[in-house]
């Protein structure tokens, strides 16, 4: 037998109270000096046995009454077999954990798995004893309380269930089970149940990791755990499992969409669980408009990459979507992505030592590196349109209009320019700072440190200016290579870079910012290449020199790919074409007044309530904690000048939800995490399963009945032992013969 209120066990010694009172009363009696003691003793002797019996019986009954009260207060629970003692049906508190992941949208042609799940839940509700309470949690990340407080209103529960629809994200079963266990632990009732309703999708259940086992074990400690499965749906399915664009005109350039050339769009189609070639068609949509359709044949259980080419005529954000023909599992039939199509990247190169000869100016070689002109290989119009200015000419331009700003050996900038650079980077522009002979720790910190919250929160170490006879300083990239320098996977390029020698070096000694990363180091002196993020933009500092004064780097074969890759990283690196459903979405608008968010289904809501502070940058941020639907999310906001702008995010089905195939019941039963649960298959009777469950019954009612009986016994004994009433006067008269 267990006790629901075991924390009150300290009450047990109170059972001794009637005995203690009996003893204490005898200690503190009033005293009377009595003359007729002989007669009193005689009367006592005559009644000794009766009095003893009375005392013992009453003491027993009163002790039993106290024990019965404590018994009731402790709320004992009887196991199965002793339930008849409870005199009542076993009220249950149940928490239903519902797997509403994307795979639950798979259909059998008539009903989806979610529909079937709701039917099974309703069958379960019908089997619950009267007075039972039910709560519902969705197994999302984080778990979602659909009905937080357990309720007895089953009609309300049914109504809520009928309005549920699967999300596009994956289920996180273990979190929901843990949450359910924590809630259920607070319920003071003998019968507690957690009912997990799931389709047992193979991708989600294949891996039975420690977290799952721990979560189910925790749930099992609190109550009975049932797993309700739904009937399987046809497994064969075609899915669009990837949507990407290919690289640009140069192998060094990452996937890049531009108006200057057609963009290659690749759609990966996968046939899941098919035995025959799947015939289907793929439609390509750009900005919501279908641009082409292609019939394809997908071999059974294989992938097929289908390529499309599309020429974007205007720069800016464009949405691209690919959709295959409808089937029984719609959710994996479409993918979207967001493309930033560039026309040309305007680059502002601020030369700290301007001059007509690129060999002597600080930025001359950089300008050449950004787009080596070769009429045979590329179009004549350079992709990077570099405008070179000195520090004194910056008032003539709007710095915010440049997606890439490069500072080459710039020791100081006007404060207005610094402010404009800061705003531009926050809005998404990139900043490349290249050291030189004029740059030192103090002037760099004065421009960009800002107490550790500036564009480049680093401290430079002692400058190194070497003479020709001094041993040179080399450069080594950190392992593993960051994606921004992926070209240096090529051993020839890596070798070329490793042989470069620098004479003018401004290494980084100390980095304060949380997002600062070191990508390369000098062979002596400190960090050579440091990256940071600021708002939506990125900053890279290179401590070596990009001119002949600082060394031989401009002559190295590694020079062009090095700076081109950095330029692309700074310009396009923060592009996020798509992300999986279930993750958070963030925007960092310049202003947060009058913002609205449009969901994939077209619903628009004011988004002020979603505004908070980014913990890393301490700047305003719009946050959707978990995007549950696939499609395009659009934030409409005003920029710093008040011009309305839009920022989009593409959300897609996560890879775990591509394949709707379910594990067989037998396979589920083999999972260690489910070893101590009762798995109820789609064809199993819920009623039978619940009947055989270990249901317990609270014995409080029995305790109360026993208490009442004892109280009646006490009253009966008191009445039975009531003294005979005597009229002493009448007796005296009779004795006197009067």
């Amino acid at each position, binding site marked *: 037998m267990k006790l629901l209120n075991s924390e009150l066990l300290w009450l047990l010694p109170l059972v001794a109270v009637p005995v203690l009172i009996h003893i204490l009363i005898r200690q503190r009696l009033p005293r009377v000096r*009595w003359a007729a003691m002989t*007669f009193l003793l005689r009367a006592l002797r005559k*009644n000794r046995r009766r009095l003893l019996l009375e005392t013992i019986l009453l003491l027993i009954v009163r002790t039993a009454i106290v024990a019965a009260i404590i018994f009731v207060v402790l709320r004992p629970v009887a196991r199965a077999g002793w339930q008849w003692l409870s005199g009542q049906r076993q009220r249950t508190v149940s928490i239903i954990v519902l797997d509403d992941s994307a795979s639950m949208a798979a259909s059998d042609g008539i009903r989806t798995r979610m529909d079937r799940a709701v039917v099974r839940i309703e069958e379960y509700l019908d089997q619950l004893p009267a007075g039972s309470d039910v709560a519902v949690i969705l197994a999302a990340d984080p778990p979602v309380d659909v009905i937080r407080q357990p309720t007895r209103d089953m009609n309300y529960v049914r109504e809520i269930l009928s309005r549920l629809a699967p999300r596009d994200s994956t289920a996180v079963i273990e979190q929901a089970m843990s949450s359910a266990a924590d809630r259920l632990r607070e319920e003071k009732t003998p019968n507690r149940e957690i009912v997990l309703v799931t389709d047992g999708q193979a991708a989600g259940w294949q891996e039975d990791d420690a977290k799952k086992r721990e979560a189910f074990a925790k749930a099992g400690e609190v109550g009975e755990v049932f797993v309700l499965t739904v009937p399987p749906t046809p497994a064969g399915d075609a899915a669009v499992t990837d949507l990407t664009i290919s690289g640009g005109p140069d192998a060094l350039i990452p996937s890049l969409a531009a108006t200057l050339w057609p963009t290659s769009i690749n759609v990966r189609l996968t046939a899941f669980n098919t035995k025959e070639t799947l015939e289907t068609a793929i439609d390509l949509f750009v900005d919501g408009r279908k641009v082409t359709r292609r019939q394809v044949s997908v071999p059974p259980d294989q992938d097929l990459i289908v390529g499309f080419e599309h020429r974007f005529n205007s720069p800016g954000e464009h949405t691209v979507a690919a959709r295959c023909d409808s089937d029984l599992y719609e959710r994996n039939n479409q993918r979207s992505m967001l493309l930033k199509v560039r026309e040309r990247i305007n680059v502002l190169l601020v030369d700290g030592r301007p001059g007509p000869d690129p060999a002597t100016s600080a930025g001359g070689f950089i300008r050449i590196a950004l787009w080596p002109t070769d009429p045979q290989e590329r179009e004549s119009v350079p992709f990077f349109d570099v405008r070179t200015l000195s520090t004194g000419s910056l008032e003539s331009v709007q710095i915010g209009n440049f997606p890439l700003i490069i500072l080459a050996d710039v020791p100081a900038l006007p404060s207005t320019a610094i402010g404009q650079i800061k705003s531009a980077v926050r809005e998404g522009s990139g900043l490349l700072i290249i050291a030189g002979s004029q740059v030192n720790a103090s002037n760099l910190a004065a421009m960009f440190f800002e107490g550790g919250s500036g564009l480049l929160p680093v401290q430079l170490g002692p400058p190194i200016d070497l003479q020709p006879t001094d041993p040179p300083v080399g450069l080594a990239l950190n392992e593993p290579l960051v994606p921004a320098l992926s070209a240096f996977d090529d051993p020839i390029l890596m070798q070329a870079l490793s042989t470069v020698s620098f004479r003018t070096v401004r290494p980084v000694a100390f980095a304060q910012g949380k997002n600062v990363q070191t990508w390369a180091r000098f062979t002596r002196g400190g960090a050579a290449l440091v990256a940071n993020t600021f708002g939506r933009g990125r900053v890279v500092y290179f401590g070596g020199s990009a001119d002949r004064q600082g060394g031989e780097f401009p002559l190295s074969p590694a020079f062009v790919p090095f700076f081109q890759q950095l330029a692309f990283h700074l310009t396009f690196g923060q592009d996020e074409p798509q992300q999986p459903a279930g993750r958070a979405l963030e925007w960092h608008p310049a202003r947060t007044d009058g913002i609205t968010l449009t969901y994939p289904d077209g619903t628009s809501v004011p988004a002020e309530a979603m505004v908070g502070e980014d913990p890393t940058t301490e700047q305003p941020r719009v946050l959707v904690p978990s995007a549950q639907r696939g499609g395009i999310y659009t934030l409409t906001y005003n920029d710093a000048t008040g011009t309305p702008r839009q920022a989009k995010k593409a959300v897609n089905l996560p890879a775990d939800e591509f394949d709707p195939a379910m594990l067989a019941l037998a396979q589920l039963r083999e999972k260690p995490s489910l070893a101590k649960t009762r798995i109820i298959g789609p064809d199993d009777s819920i009623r039978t399963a619940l009947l055989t469950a270990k249901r317990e019954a609270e014995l409080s009612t029995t305790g109360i009945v026993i208490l009442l009986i004892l109280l009646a016994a006490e009253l009966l004994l008191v009445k039975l032992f009531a003294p005979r009433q005597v009229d002493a006067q009448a007796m005296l008269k009779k004795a006197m*013969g009067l």
Partner: protein
Amino acid sequence: MAGRREERLTDRKYVVFDVLDHIASLEMRARDLVEGTMAGLQRSPYLGASSEFAQHRAYVPGDDTRHVDWKVYGRTERYYVRQFQEETNFVATFILDCSESMRYGSGKASKLDHACLLTASLSYLALRQSDAVSVALFDEDLIAFLPPRTSLGSLGVVASSLETVRPERGTRLETVVPVLVEMIGRRGIVVIISDLLDVSSPGGEDDTAGILRVIQRLRHQRHEVVVMHVLDPQELSFDFGGRIRFEGMESLPAAVAEPNKIRADYVDIIQKFVAETKMACAGTRSDYVLVNTAEPVDRLLVRYLTARGKIREGRR
């Protein structure tokens, strides 16, 4: 007279003038014939030349012819002689129980106080009648004995001796009475004022055996015996509540009891004791008076002496 009396007895605790005034009109007469030397209220067993005619008797040769009642002869032509009763005084001896058990009292006054008041009041009555009063105080032994006195002024002596009583010891009336019998001397009225508790020896003897022996001893000496059985109302009714530790007097043990639970049996026992004592007295032609200390002394004496007077009248 009354003024002089008050002047001498004012400070006496047991001389309560209200009570004395109330009983002043009463008489305490001997039920049986007693010997006496003074002219008092009591009857003499000797039928001689006295002013009071007693009865006729048939003449037998040898009777004094002066006592032949010739009027009766004239009527009946038979010879009858007249017999006369000689009135004389008596000695009232009050044997007062001063044992520890007499200290008990549920009200303001103890049984002993009540008994002393009773003794003083009856002494007054007897002295007023020119009868002699003698007082014996006892517990385990004879504490004090006042020889018979006849003057009314002796009441102060009686009263002051009562005030010296210290009830601290047990009771042994059976031991004391034989001594008293020698000291009392001539026939008189002996009034035993006691609660009669523990008079019998312990160990299961009949509660009344002891007092019966005492009475019989006194009756054997031709004394008239009055037993005034002094009991407290609580001793009679045992009307206590709750649970109490009763501590025995006269070396008896203590006991814890719930009076409610044993009251019926206790009352049975005490009533039986009273009834048996009364029966024992009746069997020896002694008077038995149950003195409930809740009843005022004067009322008790009025009731008793009036009834006693009526009985005496009935016997004549």
